């Protein structure tokens, strides 16, 4: 065995080897060059559509939809989750409805959304809103219910009112859970924006990829996929960064406790 070191370079090497291998196999026609065009052609296509202004427009359209649905879901369902976690009666009232609505696969609602909103932006925002709802809601409820009784009782002893209690104790104490729900929903929002753009749209990155395949512009299709992967990666990194900033106190706290 020549390779015995467990360094990160191993993987980078493999990753770097994939590209020339793809290029070679495609040029030698061992891979069907129509279905697997050479890497250099894909990269050239990527450069062209990025510069022509075609792709940036699609990216912006997709990002706007994802952001609108995501932030709407965050605002509505964090609020609802805090209320439902805090007031047990409210939870009991809506538990059954939630349990029935949750197993609906979000794409199943696309036809309903098309019916009500047409195939414009509202339809996609609604679908993203619906699919991001569950992780945020369930995690927030869990977080609020898991708040240490001692914290709540201490706050009450010091004479905090109900709203102060929620603002100063419940929300900070539940925030790690809320962040988990928000993180899961970032990935979900991107998936659903792609799906809804594939089913009915005239722009957006999901539309772009499917349309490129249908017009047999295969290098463009791969270029779109690379952009999508980069987008998913970047969004995740941004979230981790924001999380680190906002929740730094929490990480510091738990690390110290250990």
């Amino acid at each position, binding site marked *: 065995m020549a390779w015995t070191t467990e360094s990160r370079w191993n993987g980078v090497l*493999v990753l770097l080897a994939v590209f020339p291998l793809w290029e070679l196999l495609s040029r030698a026609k061992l891979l069907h060059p129509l279905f697997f065009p050479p890497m250099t052609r894909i990269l050239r296509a990527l450069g062209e559509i990025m510069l022509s202004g075609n792709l940036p427009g699609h990216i912006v359209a997709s990002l706007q939809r994802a952001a609108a649905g995501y932030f709407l879901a965050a605002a509505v369902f964090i609020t609802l989750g805090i209320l439902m976690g805090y007031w047990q009666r409210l939870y009991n009232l809506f*538990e059954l409805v939630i349990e029935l609505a949750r197993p609906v696969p979000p794409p199943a609602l696309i*036809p309903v959304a098309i019916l009500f909103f047409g195939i414009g932006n509202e339809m996609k925002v609604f679908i993203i809103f619906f699919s991001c709802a569950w992780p945020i809601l369930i995690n927030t409820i869990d977080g609020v219910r898991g708040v240490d009784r001692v914290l709540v009782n201490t706050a009450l002893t010091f004479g905090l009112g109900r709203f102060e209690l929620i603002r100063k104790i419940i929300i900070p104490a539940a925030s790690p859970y809320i962040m988990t729900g928000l993180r899961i929903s970032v990935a979900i929002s991107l998936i659903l924006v792609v799906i809804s753009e594939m089913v009915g749209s005239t722009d957006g990155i999901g539309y772009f*990829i499917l349309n490129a395949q249908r017009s047999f512009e295969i290098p463009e299709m791969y270029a779109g996929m690379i952009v999508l992967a980069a987008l*998913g990666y970047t969004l995740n990194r941004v979230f981790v960064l924001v999380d680190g900033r906002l929740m730094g106190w929490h990480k510091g706290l738990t690390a110290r406790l250990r």
Partner: protein
Amino acid sequence: MAERGRPSFRLAGLGVLVALLCLWELASRTGYVYEVYFPPITRIAGTFLRILLDGTLVQHMLATLGRFGRGYLLAAALAVSAGLVLGYWRLLFTFFEPLIEFMRPMPSPAIIPIAILLFGIGDEMKIFVTLYACSWPILLNTIDGVRSIDRTLFNTALTFGLGRWELIRKVVIPAASPQIVTGLRISLAIALILVTTAEMVVSNDGLGFFILDEQRSFRIAEMYAGIFTLALLGYTLNRVFLALDARVMGWHRGLTKKEIL
């Protein structure tokens, strides 16, 4: 949370559900909401029964389930095996980690166009898409499960002279199984989403196709009946999984409970 199981509170939840359904029915019958978009619940229920009995729903459901089952089980077999290998041999993992990190953030529906290109618009395409999307949670959870196994278990097994294959079969797989099951559960929901999506993009049967097709033909009651069937399917699959989980993994829950006590 002692109130949770009390029947009066459960009844309250049921009351809210019934009230919502009645409200829908009334609003639709009185024309308060557009009746074409919100047909009365009773009509949807009637339609559901009709297309269930004439076999339409069953036929589409079987098509969806067939694709779902093949994609999901294939993903389980491949991803668990790959995860065991990658989790066990660290060296191998270092080779593939960046590749995995590179491919994972791409939203899985983006694979649909390639799948159409390679497999056409038939069953294989949908099975491939499902397989691809399900593989990630299973693979990553399996790798994680294997890597976090207690060293003591390994050393004990080695002390007792277990060979490598026996070690994997008798120690690694059982010890990693709780996390493998977690990956399998996450993938269950993903599989249903991707099958439905693939059927919406191109298909001529399956529940995803059925729902979109009914909407496009403006048979709205049928569309709602289809969505209800899909929700029912999702719910049932989850229940079946939990039941299987309790059976297969019962030993694990018994173990951890004992340790806590």
